[in-house]
C-alpha cells in the first residue's frame, strides 16, 4: 500500500519511535489516559486514581528540581521550602485562615489565579535564595539551601498568628471551573469529571488537572532545555569559568535556574493545597527535599523523561510496594502454610511487624543497589550516557599522553 507507506514515512514514525525519550513520553501519555478508566473499572473505586494524582505532585516537583540540579548543576537540598511557599500562598488566600489573623478578613481567591501567584511567589523566593548563594559552589551551596529548607517550615510553624502554626490550615477552597467552560466534562450528568463545576474531593477531577499541569510543565521545560538559556545552564554545569569566558552572564543564568526551578515547586504547592485541603508545616520537611532529589538522580539527572519515570517509580516504591509489604507478607505466609511466622515469639516480632520495622532499611538498600547497578539513572540524558561510555577511553588516552610526555 504505497499511500499508507508514504504517510508512514511522512510522519517519520519509525525514527520517532526509535527515539527513546519520545517513546517514553508516548507510553506515559497513553498510560495516563487509560489509567483512571482502567483502574476504576478493575477495582470499582477511585483509590488508584487519587494515588496517581498524588504521585503527579511529585512528578511536578521532580521536573522542577531537575532544572536546578540536572540542567544547571546546582545542588539544592531545600527544594521543599518552595513547595511549602506555594502551598501556603494558596492556603492563606483561599481559606478562612486570614480571618483569624491580624488582617481579620478572609480571602477566597480563585485557584486558577493562585496557581500562578504561587508560582511567582516561589520563583521570587528562589531568586532571593539564589542571590546570596551565587558565589558559592558545590558543597557550600548545598549547605545553604539545606538551611533555607529548614528555615521555611519553621517560619510557617512559628508565625502561628498568620498560619495557624502546628494547627495547620484546613478547609482550603476546592478549585471550581468557571461556568463558561461548559461541556460534557462539567455539569450534573453522570460522565462529568467536574460535577457542578466544583472539583470538590473528586479524585478524577484532580487527576485530570495534574495531568494537564504536568504536560504543560514538560513542554515548557523541554523548550527551556533547547533554548539559549538551556545551553547556558549546560555550559555552567560543565565549567563555570569557561562559561563566563564564552560571554555567559553566570549570575543571571544561575538566578534564573533557581527561580524557574522554584516556580514549578510553587505550582505543585498550590495544587497540593487544593487537592489535599490541608496544609501543615510538617508536610515540607527535609525528607521531602531528599525524596525529590532521589527521584531526579535515580530517574536520570538532566533528562526530563527519566526524571518523570524516577518520580513515579520512587512514589510507587514508597507508597505502594513498601507500605503494603507487611500485609502482603502476612497473607503470603498464611497462604503457603507458614502462618506461625506471623506470631511474635520472644525476640521474633512476627513477620509483618519485622517488615514494618525494616521498611526504610529496604528502601535504603534498593537505592544503594540502583546506584551501584545503574549510576546514570533509569533513563540518563545523552550527555551523561556518553560521558560514562567514554570515561574509560579518556582515562586510557590520558595515560598514553602522560607516558609520551615523560
Amino acid at each position, binding site marked *: 500500500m504505497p499511500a499508507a507507506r508514504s504517510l508512514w514515512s511522512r510522519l517519520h514514525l519509525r525514527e520517532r519511535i526509535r527515539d527513546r525519550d519520545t517513546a517514553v513520553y508516548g507510553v506515559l501519555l497513553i498510560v495516563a489516559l487509560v489509567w483512571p478508566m482502567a483502574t476504576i473499572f478493575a477495582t470499582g473505586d477511585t483509590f488508584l486514581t487519587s494515588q496517581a494524582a498524588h504521585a503527579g505532585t511529585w512528578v511536578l516537583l521532580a521536573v522542577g528540581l531537575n532544572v536546578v540540579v540536572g540542567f544547571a548543576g546546582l545542588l539544592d537540598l531545600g527544594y521543599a521550602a518552595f513547595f511549602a511557599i506555594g502551598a501556603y500562598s494558596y492556603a492563606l488566600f483561599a481559606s478562612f485562615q486570614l480571618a483569624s489573623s491580624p488582617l481579620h478578613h478572609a480571602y477566597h481567591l480563585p485557584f486558577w489565579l493562585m496557581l500562578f501567584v504561587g508560582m511567582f511567589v516561589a520563583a521570587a523566593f528562589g531568586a532571593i535564595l539564589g542571590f546570596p548563594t551565587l558565589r558559592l559552589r558545590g558543597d557550600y551551596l548545598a549547605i545553604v539551601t539545606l538551611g533555607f529548607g529548614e528555615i521555611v517550615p519553621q517560619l510557617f510553624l512559628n508565625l502561628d498568628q498568620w498560619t495557624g502554626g502546628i494547627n495547620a490550615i484546613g478547609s482550603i477552597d476546592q478549585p471550581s471551573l468557571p461556568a463558561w467552560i461548559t461541556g460534557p466534562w462539567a455539569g450534573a450528568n453522570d460522565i462529568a469529571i467536574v460535577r457542578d463545576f466544583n472539583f470538590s474531593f473528586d479524585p478524577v477531577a484532580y487527576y485530570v488537572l495534574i495531568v494537564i499541569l504536568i504536560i504543560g510543565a514538560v513542554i515548557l521545560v523541554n523548550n527551556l532545555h533547547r533554548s*539559549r538559556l538551556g*545551553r547556558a545552564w549546560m*555550559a555552567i554545569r560543565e*565549567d563555570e569559568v*569557561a562559561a563566563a569566558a*564564552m560571554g555567559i552572564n553566570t549570575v543571571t543564568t544561575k538566578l534564573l535556574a533557581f527561580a524557574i526551578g522554584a516556580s514549578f515547586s510553587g505550582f505543585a504547592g498550590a495544587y497540593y493545597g487544593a487537592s489535599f485541603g490541608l496544609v501543615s508545616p510538617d508536610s515540607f520537611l527535609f525528607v521531602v527535599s531528599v525524596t525529590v532529589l532521589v527521584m531526579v538522580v535515580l530517574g536520570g539527572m538532566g533528562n526530563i523523561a527519566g526524571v518523570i519515570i524516577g518520580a513515579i517509580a520512587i512514589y510507587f516504591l514508597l507508597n505502594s510496594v513498601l507500605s503494603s509489604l507487611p500485609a502482603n507478607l502476612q497473607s503470603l505466609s498464611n497462604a503457603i502454610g507458614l502462618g506461625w511466622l506471623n506470631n511474635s515469639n520472644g525476640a521474633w516480632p512476627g513477620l509483618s511487624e519485622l517488615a514494618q520495622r525494616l521498611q526504610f532499611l529496604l528502601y535504603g538498600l534498593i537505592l544503594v543497589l540502583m546506584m551501584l547497578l545503574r549510576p546514570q539513572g533509569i533513563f540518563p540524558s545523552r550527555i551523561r550516557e556518553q560521558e560514562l561510555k*567514554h570515561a574509560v577511553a579518556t582515562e586510557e588516552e590520558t595515560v598514553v599522553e602522560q607516558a609520551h610526555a615523560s
Partner: protein
Amino acid sequence: MALLELRGVDAFYGRIQALRGVSIDVGQGEVVALIGSNGAGKTTTLRTISGLMHPTTGTISFNDRDITRVGPDKIVGLGICQSPEGRRLFPRMSVNDNLMMGAFTRTDRPGIASDIERVFVLFPRLRERRNQIAGTLSGGEQQMLAMGRALMARPKLLMLDEPSLGLAPILVETIFSIVREINSQGTPVLLVEQNAHKALEVAHRAYVLETGVIVQTGTGKELLESADVQKAYLGM
C-alpha cells in the same frame, strides 16, 4: 591609539599583590607576547583584561572605551575572547557543541555556520572529529578546539593562555603556525607563553613579566637577541 591599553594596573589575590603597575599595549593586527616564568603574573594579566578579576588601581581600555570594571560576559560581547589557561573545554559536549558555545553571544546563524567552516579549514582535525565528545580528544586536538571556540566569537582581540602547554614538539609547531595564520587573517593576538623561544619568534612585540612587574619590552626579534632574556628564558 592602541586597540587594548593597560595603564599602571595593580591586581591582588586577597592580600598578595600579583601585578604592580603593569602597562601593556596591543595594536591592530599585532601579535603581542607576554613571557615570564611561573607565577610572574601572566595569567593574572589576562584575567584582569577579560573581567574575571578587576584591578585595584590602573585602567584598562579597549577600542577607546574604559573596561576596567566591566564584567566578563560584557567583555566577550565587546570582542575580547580568550582561550583560557588549561583550555577549559566543555568536556561532555561534542566538538560541534563546543564551537557553538563559543558563538553564544552571537545570533546570526549564517555567520556562525560560515565561521564553523572557517575553524574547520584552520583545524582539519576538528572536522574529522566534529561529533566526538571534547573530553575524549587528545591534548593537541583539545588545544585546537579551545582556539577554535575562542574564534567563534569573532573576536576583535584573541587572547591565548599557554597554547603550547603539555603538547608534543611537533604539535607546538602546528599551534604556533596557526596563531600566525589567524593573525594574518586580521585578528590581533595577545599570547601568554612559557615557551619564550616560540612565542618571541611569532610575536611582533613582547613584554617580559617578572613577579608582577614588566621588566623588559621590545620587538620579538630584539628580545630573542637580548642577553638577559637569553639567559633567563631561552636557556642559553
